[in-house]
């Protein structure tokens, strides 16, 4: 929910700096360097979450054995957890555990955290994906038209839309949408992912409600899944649209001032051809980065939206864990969303570097 605008340009810069092919000739080297930087960043993320557990005022031993345990039980548990070892050893063990996908036991659900996350992550992914498709399509269209008609009415509208999108608290927008479209107008169903009727009868095949309901062959179930998805997806799409509109407008506008655009017009190309045939191939990298960044921030923002819409994803899992003081679940969910966030952005960097290959001067 923090401003994505300021980040994108620097992400692009990092991408070109780390993967600039003038410096790193050959795709192999670039991929190796990319893997190195991703590994280092993920390592940093694990280190940060580990540091949080160490800084936590909650005593993990007490959490395990309870307040009334004897001193010997306490000591044994402490030894069991390895808390007597040096910090570096503790971190090493933590790293190995996380590396094996062992995120510990969630006290709030009584299940392994990894299993909980596997169950909830698909819901988050489904919502974020639908939202980014809507947000990217409308945001890119608006941004491109705003750049073409720079200074015009559509440009002004685009500016207002992105300003509002940047400034509005997303959880509040979700609440307003529920109030208006669910409670007042009855256009949309309330919170949740499916009607209660289908919720327990649906066989989870892929974990994605849209696909599972379609597979089930029950038209009502599919309609219910779509209807429940509309409001949260629209809220998230609006949020993504703000950044995408503004940044894509800037990227296209910059290109429209380039000399090759003049050449294209001198050949007789119209404004639409100039943008779609000449400009867009030159901004695929930046646009890809912009959309991927918005997608990643939707995953991150799931914590708030899923709470508002009672969407059974990993964000809501995180908030529930948060109220229960379930450290393992909080860290597991944070690590998972964080890794997805980092991987998505890094993959985009790599893809962007690859598209520029061969024609860079």
């Amino acid at each position, binding site marked *: 929910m923090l401003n994505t605008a300021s980040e994108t340009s620097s992400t692009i810069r990092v991408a070109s700096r780390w993967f600039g092919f003038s410096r790193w000739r050959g795709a192999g080297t670039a991929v190796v360097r990319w893997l190195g930087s991703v590994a*280092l960043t993920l390592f940093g*993320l694990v280190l940060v979450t580990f540091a949080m557990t160490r*800084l936590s005022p909650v005593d993990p031993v007490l959490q395990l054995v309870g307040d009334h345990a004897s001193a010997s039980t306490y000591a044994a548990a402490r030894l069991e957890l390895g808390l007597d070892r040096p910090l570096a050893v503790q971190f090493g063990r933590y790293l190995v555990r996380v590396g094996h996908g062992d995120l510990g036991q969630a006290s709030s659900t009584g299940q392994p955290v990894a299993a909980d996350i596997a169950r909830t992550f698909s819901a988050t992914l489904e919502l974020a994906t639908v939202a980014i498709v809507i947000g990217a399509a409308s945001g890119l269209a608006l941004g491109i038209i705003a750049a073409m008609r720079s200074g015009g009415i559509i440009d002004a509208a685009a500016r207002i839309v992105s300003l*509002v999108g940047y*400034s509005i*608290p997303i959880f*509040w927008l979700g609440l307003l949408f529920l109030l208006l479209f669910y409670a007042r107008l009855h256009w949309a169903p309330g919170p949740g992912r499916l009607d209660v009727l289908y919720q327990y009868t649906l066989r989870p095949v892929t974990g994605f409600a849209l696909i599972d309901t379609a597979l089930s062959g029950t038209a009502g179930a599919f309609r219910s899944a779509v209807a429940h998805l509309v409001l949260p997806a629209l809220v998230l799409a609006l949020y993504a649209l703000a950044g995408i509109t503004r940044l894509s407008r800037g990227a296209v506008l910059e290109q429209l001032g380039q000399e090759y655009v003049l050449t294209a017009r001198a050949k007789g190309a119209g404004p639409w051809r100039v943008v779609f045939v000449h400009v867009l191939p030159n901004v695929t990298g930046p646009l890809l980065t912009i959309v991927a960044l918005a997608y990643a921030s939707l995953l991150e923002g799931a914590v*708030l939206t899923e709470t508002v819409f009672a969407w059974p994803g990993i964000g809501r899992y995180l908030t529930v864990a948060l109220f229960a003081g379930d450290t393992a679940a909080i860290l597991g969910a944070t690590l998972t969303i964080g890794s997805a966030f980092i991987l998505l952005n890094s993959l985009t960097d790599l893809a962007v570097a690859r598209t520029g290959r061969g024609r860079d001067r």
Partner: protein
Amino acid sequence: MMATMPTAPSPGLARLMRSPAALFGLGMIGLMIVVAVLAPVLAPFDPNLQDIANRLARPSAQHWLGTDGFGRDQVSRLFYGVRPTLLLVILVAALMAPLGVAVGVVAGYCGGLVERALMRVTDIVMSFPRLLLAFAFVAILGPGLINGGLALALTSWPAYARQARVETVALRDHDYLAAAEMVGIRGWRLIVGHVLPLVLPSTIIRLALDLAGIILAAAGLGFLGLGVRPPTAEWGSMVADGTPVIFDEWWLTAAPGCAIFLASLAFNLLADGLRDVLDPRHD
């Protein structure tokens, strides 16, 4: 880089005054400061005064925006709610910008291994999901204004470090720095004296832009119950308090959300106006 920097601050200020959007933003921020300072005078009631007999009252001449679930006057709580928001903004700004600039200047001045190590750390932190880590940080270390501010500042500094490093490196390669060192002036003082004015304009723009996001993040923390502890009035937690009754007493949710929106909008508008004035290179 240096040639395109703004020349004198006064014509810039005059141009800022001509940007209605920036003026509106500046005015809103000024208004927030006034309300925060004068809250005890402006608020018609004690924001924490519970009146169970008069709970969830509709808006009236006495309670303009009604009362919440504890019978507390909503207008008074809105006024007092400016305080944690502004405090957090100040806290984060005071932490992240100096931290980032310091890292950048040290990296740029020392060069070599120090520079590479520091910038690698900067890149790593820059790739972190900031909002998420802030939530996790506060969830684990305990809710509160300080923890929230600390969490947001600790993940938001890298952009400032990058900028400061670029400017420092540009200066480091200048001949007059070598000349100054030859006559015995410590390079450090020169760097600090010259880099700070150079990074100031871009830092201010970024700060205004970041603070708009910080306000939203802080409201999100409050909404999840990770902000200041109750019963202190805070906009995000007020939205959360109104949520259970949103379908009937919708104004209890609408008003604080609107306040968050306007506060964030004010900083965004100011950032836009500042960018037009201070950074003509931008579109």
